[in-house]
């Protein structure tokens, strides 16, 4: 009896020691991220209410001036449209790739992965070349006789959409593909044999089963789109001011407290979206599926 207690106490002590060791392995990275990531971001956020003195004026300014409200609204609208477009274009691709044999789908997947790997700067530059006044798209349209004079494509909202969807599409396709690959095809066949048409199979079986992938993809694309900087800065027009570009401009103008307030709004929006997806759509489950 006594020895049993003693050994269980020893086991508990051993467990505590090994847990302390595990914690010690994580500690360096926590300290590092604390100093070079969390502290700077926290200090920046603190600046938004503490400068020039304790005040909420920086936030009041965002919501009082139509120009800034416009930026918030535009950022939300572009992110939403980009997410929906990526879903509409990405779902068929993920579905077809998931139905093909592995060897074929791996080959076609290269077409998704190569853009995914290339830097955003390179891809945005490619769109500047394609959409410019003398660019390839205009030349093709002229050659086809569809237009008489070159269209203004670059530095428009249209360019922002086209380039942002291009950059973010792989973030939609990859989680969708992961979920659709793991799906049991027999379920679709069963629905078919019970008389369901293609639309019913999609609506009643495929879509509900792939929902974790849909929500993971939409969450990734939407949050990344909210903070997008490089693409709207290069291919957007002066009126296509997204929040990240506005933040950079304000930093350049040395309006640091105001830039900080904008950053707080952006972070709050991203966290809100994250929380909503977590609650309603069970994204955690989705990320679990993506891993396998």
């Amino acid at each position, binding site marked *: 009896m006594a020895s049993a207690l003693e050994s269980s106490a020893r086991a508990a002590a051993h467990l505590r020691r*090994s847990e302390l060791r*595990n*914690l010690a*392995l*994580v500690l*360096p*990275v*926590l300290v*590092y*991220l604390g100093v*070079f*990531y969390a*502290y*700077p971001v*926290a200090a*920046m956020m603190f600046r938004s209410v503490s400068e020039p003195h304790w005040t909420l004026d920086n936030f009041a300014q965002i919501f009082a001036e139509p120009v800034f409200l416009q930026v918030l609204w535009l950022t939300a609208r572009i992110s939403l449209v980009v997410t929906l477009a990526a879903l509409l*274009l990405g779902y*068929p691709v993920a579905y*077809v*790739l*998931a*139905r*093909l044999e592995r060897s074929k789908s791996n080959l*076609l997947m290269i*077409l*998704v*992965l*190569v853009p995914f*790997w*290339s*830097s*955003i*700067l*390179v*891809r945005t*530059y*490619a769109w*500047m*070349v*394609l959409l410019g006044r*003398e*660019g390839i798209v205009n030349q093709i349209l002229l050659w086809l006789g569809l237009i008489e004079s070159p269209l203004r494509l670059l530095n428009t909202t249209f360019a922002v959409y086209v380039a942002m969807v*291009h950059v973010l599409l792989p973030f939609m396709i990859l989680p969708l593909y992961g979920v659709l*690959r793991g799906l*049991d*095809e027999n379920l679709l*066949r069963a629905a*078919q044999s019970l008389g369901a048409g293609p639309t019913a199979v999609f609506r009643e079986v495929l879509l509900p089963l792939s929902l974790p992938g849909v929500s993971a993809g939409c969450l990734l694309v939407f*949050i*990344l789109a909210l*903070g997008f*900087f*490089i693409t709207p800065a290069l291919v957007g027009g002066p009126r296509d001011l997204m929040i*990240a570009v506005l933040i950079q401009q304000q*930093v350049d103008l040395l309006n*640091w407290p105001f830039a*900080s307030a904008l*950053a707080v709004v*952006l972070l709050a929006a*991203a966290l809100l979206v994250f929380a909503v997806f977590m609650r309603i759509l069970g994204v955690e489950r989705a990320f679990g599926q993506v891993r396998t």
Partner: protein
Amino acid sequence: MRTGPRRIPVCLAALVAVVLLYLIFPILIIVPLSLSSALYLSFPPPSLSLQWYRNFFSRSDWLDAAWLSIWVGALVMVLATLLGTPAAIGLVRGRFRGRKAINAFILSPLIAPAIIVAIGIYFFYARIGLVGNPMALVLAHTGLAVPFVVINVSATLYGFDRRLEQAALSLGATPWRAFWQVMLPIIRPGVMAGAVFAFISSFDELIVALFISGSTAVTLPRKMWQSIRFEIDPTIAAVSTLLIVFTGALFVTAELLRRRSQRLRTTAGAAVPA
């Protein structure tokens, strides 16, 4: 999901082909542009020439930027691997409270809007006089690169058979030796894949560099940004082509390492019958 009896409808296949073309075409179009003999961007190129590549390799501002990016990336790779590998081990094995929250915190740089991190670090560095310092760039990039190491090492660790390590310990090996001679050889491909991703994440990073590199620590993405904005000439197409090939090769390496780690995992599992 496997190939079913029903064939994929033609209109669906056509739609998918168009989307895949949309994804790959802009990447492919850069290559002929970089080989153009024209002095400005025109398509199709009047004739082929390597002048823009020569321009890149003969201009010191481009080469300096490329070297700086490679150096910064290499240091970030080393630091992030040294910080991330033990953290992944502690997180996968640990059962301590707050483990999930800590994991989420370590991975959060992946999804946090880059502009927020960038201005936070910029204000911090401006106060302590680190703007324009290459080492400061390394320190900032390392924080953003650590999640890639943690993710890749964790993935290999989930398949690691702990009995191998316990066997080493029971045969009298010190914990350090058990790690070095038993665990590390098995998780090495995951560690290396994480290291490659860490390198690329720094090598490609623009937004933080835009704020903190000043005029003295101009990285390649930063130089490209300036060039795209102010001097559009086809040199940038040549640089882009080189980058696509370079990062593509790195990603293929990382992917091969990941596959290798999966294979090693299964053979290691087979070596110790359950």
